[in-house]
C-alpha cells in the first residue's frame, strides 16, 4: 500500500508538491495526470526516497520512507520513462543482474519465464539490448520489477514513446500485476491510457492534487475536458 500524509516538497521558495494526501491500496492503479512541473515526478521520487520531503511523510506498506529508506526498497519496484539498462548485455543478462542486486537468484529458465511474462519474444532474450526497441526495453524493465515480487510499483511516464501496440501490451501487464494485489502509482501525460488502465485518476496542477476521480465515472472525452479545464 502507498500512502502520502500531508506530503510537501519545496525547492527554495518553489512549492513542488503541496500537502498531498493519498492512499493507494493493493490492487489499485492510481494514475497521476498533469503538465510538466505539476509535481508528478516529485511525488514518485518522494516515494522512492530519492528526495526528502519538506514536511509530511510518504509510507510504503506502512513504513515511513524517510525513516527507513533502505527497508522500503524491498517492498517497491520502479520503472522509469526510458529503460536504458546496459546495451552491451542481453535481455537475460540485464534481468539476471538487476534481480541479483535485489537478492533474487533465478535460474535461466525462471528468467526466461519472467521475460516471456513481460511480453518479450523468446528470440530476443539472448540479443544485446542495443538492438532492442523502446517497447522491448520497457518489457525488460517490467520483468525486472516483477522479478522483485514487490507489492508496490511506481511508474514514471511508462508508455511515453511507445507505439500503440506496445502501449496496449504494457497496459495488459500492469492490469495483471494489479490483479495480483500490487498497488501501482503511475505518472503519465497519456489521458487515454490512464483512463484505460487506472482504477483512480488524480489531476495535478502546480504541486496540488486538484481532482481525484474514479476512472470508470467518466468517458475518455469527459476526462480530457476535465483535464483541460483543470490544468
Amino acid at each position, binding site marked *: 500500500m502507498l500512502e502520502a500524509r500531508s506530503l510537501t516538497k519545496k525547492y527554495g521558495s518553489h512549492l513542488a508538491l503541496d500537502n498531498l494526501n493519498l492512499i493507494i491500496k493493493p490492487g489499485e492503479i492510481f494514475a497521476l495526470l498533469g503538465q510538466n512541473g505539476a509535481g508528478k515526478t516529485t511525488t514518485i521520487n518522494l516515494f522512492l526516497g530519492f528526495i526528502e520531503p519538506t514536511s509530511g511523510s510518504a509510507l510504503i506498506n506502512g513504513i515511513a520512507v524517510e525513516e527507513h529508506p533502505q527497508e522500503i526498497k524491498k517492498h517497491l519496484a520502479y520503472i522509469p520513462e526510458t529503460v*536504458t539498462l546496459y546495451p552491451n548485455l542481453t535481455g537475460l543478462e540485464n534481468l539476471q543482474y538487476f534481480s541479483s542486486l535485489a*537478492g533474487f537468484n533465478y535460474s535461466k529458465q525462471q528468467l526466461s519465464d519472467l521475460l516471456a511474462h513481460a511480453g518479450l519474444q523468446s528470440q530476443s532474450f539472448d540479443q544485446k539490448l542495443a538492438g532492442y526497441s523502446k517497447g522491448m526495453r520497457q518489457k525488460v524493465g517490467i520483468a525486472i520489477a516483477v522479478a*522483485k515480487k514487490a507489492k508496490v510499483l511506481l511508474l514514471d511516464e511508462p508508455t511515453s514513446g511507445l507505439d500503440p501496440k506496445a502501449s496496449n501490451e504494457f497496459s495488459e501487464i500492469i492490469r495483471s500485476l494489479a490483479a495480483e494485489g500490487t498497488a501501482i502509482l503511475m505518472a503519465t501525460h497519456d489521458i487515454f491510457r490512464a483512463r484505460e488502465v487506472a482504477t483512480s485518476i488524480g489531476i495535478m496542477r502546480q504541486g496540488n492534487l486538484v481532482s481525484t476521480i474514479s476512472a470508470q465515472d467518466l468517458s475518455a472525452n469527459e476526462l480530457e475536458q476535465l483535464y483541460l479545464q483543470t490544468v
Partner: protein
Amino acid sequence: MPPQLLIARNFRSNALKNTAVYLLILFIGILITYAVITSWSGFVKQNETTAHHQAETRHDWLDNPDKHPHRMAHYGNFAFRPKAPLSIFDSGMESFFGNTIFLEAHKQNSVNFSEAGFSTGMLRFGEISVAMVLQILLPLLLFFIGFTSIAAERENGTLKIILTQGISWKQLITGKIIGLAQIAMGVFIPVMLVTFVLWFFLQDGHITSDETVRLLLVFLSYGIYLLLFCVIAVLVSAASRTSKSALVSLIGLWLMLTIVLPRASQALGSYLYPAPVKVTFLANIEKDVLKEGDSHNPDDIHYKALKDSLLTTYGVDSTSQLPFNYSGFVMAEGEKISARIYNSHFDKLLRVYDDQNSFLKATAFLDPFVAIKNLSMSLAGTDYRTYTDFQKQAEAYRYAMAQKMNELQIKYISNKKPGPNEKPVVIDQKHWEEVPEFEYVQPMVNTVFEHETTSFFALLFWIGLLYFMIEILSKKLKVN
C-alpha cells in the same frame, strides 16, 4: 554473492567490452615491456662494467711498484656505485647521478659518468620506467575507465533502478571501486610478477631480507596508491552530473596531481631554500680551508705554530731532526682540516636539500603522487639520499686512504732528502694491500622509514581521507 561484488563484476565486464580500454592497456603493456627491457639491460651493463673496472683498478692499485706513499695518495683510487636491484623497477634519479668518483689526496672530486651525460634522445624527454608508468599512466587509465562508473548510470537512468533494487550508495560506490581496482590489479600484478622474477634472477640468488622487505613495501605502497586513484575516479564520477563533466574533472585532477603540483612544489621549495651553485660551493670550501691554514705556505700561521710546537716538544732545531717524516705529518693535518671543512659544507648543503625535499614531501598530503614518488625512489635505492650516502662513503674511504698513505709516510719515509745520486725514497709495494677495496653498502631499509615518514603518513592520510569521503558522499549524494 554480495551486491558489491556483483556491481564490481558488472562494471569490470562492461569496461572490458570497450575496445579503447584494450588499446590503452596494450599501449601501457608495450611501455612497461620497453621499460623492463631497457632497465634490465641497463642494470646488467652498468653492474658488469662497474665490476670489471673495480677489479681492474684494484689490480692496478696493488700492481704499483715500490713508491713514495704520497705518490700513491695521488695515484688515487676509484669508488664505483653499483645499481640497486630495484632500480630495474624505479630508476628514480639514477640516470642523472654519476656512478664513479676518482679518489685522491687533498681533493674531493665530483661523481662522474651519469647515464644522462651519455644519453642520446630518450632521456631528454624523461625516462620511461616501470614505476613511472604505474605512477602516471596507470592512474590516467583508471580515470579514463572510471569516469563513467556512476555518472553514466545517472545519465542513462540505471542509477535509479539500481538504488530501487535496495542497493545503498555505499554499496554502489564500493562495488565500482572494487571493479576498477580489479582492472588496475590486472595490470599491476603481472607487472609486479615480472619485476619479482627479474629482481630475483639479477641478484644471482643472493637475496637479502633487506631487499625482500623493500620489494614487499614497493608492492604494498603501489597497491595502495592505485587503489587511491580508483577511489578518486569513482567518487568524482559519483559527484558529477554527467560523464563528460566527470572526465573533464578527472583529467584536470590528473594534470594537477602528476604534473602541476609536484613541479610547482619543487620550484617553490628551491625558491624558499636556495642552494648554492657548484662553483660557489667549491669556492667557499677553498676559502675556509685557506682561512684555517695553507700547508704549502711556510709562513702560514697555523702550520708555523704546529711546527714550532713539534720542534719544542722534541727539543730539535729543524724538522729534518724530527724522528718522523714531517711532510707526512703536515699532510695528515692538512687532510684532516680540509676533510672537516668539506664535510661541514657538504652537510650544510644537504640540510638545504633536506629543507627543499621536506617542503616537497609535505605536499604529499595534497598529492599522493608526491608520496609514492619519494617512497618508491627511496625503496628502490635511486633517490638523492642514497646517492649522497654513496658520496659520503666514498669520501670516508678517500679520507682513510689518504691518511693511510700519510701514516705510511710518517712511519717509513726518512726526514733526510736523498742526494742527487741516491735512489728516491720509496716503501715496499706490499703496503698497498693495507688499503682495502672500496665497496658501497646500500643503507638499510629502516633508513627509508626514517627519511620517508612523511610519505608513509601521507599515504595513510589519503586512505583515511578517501574513506571519510566515501562515508560522507554515501549520505549526501543525490540521484539526479
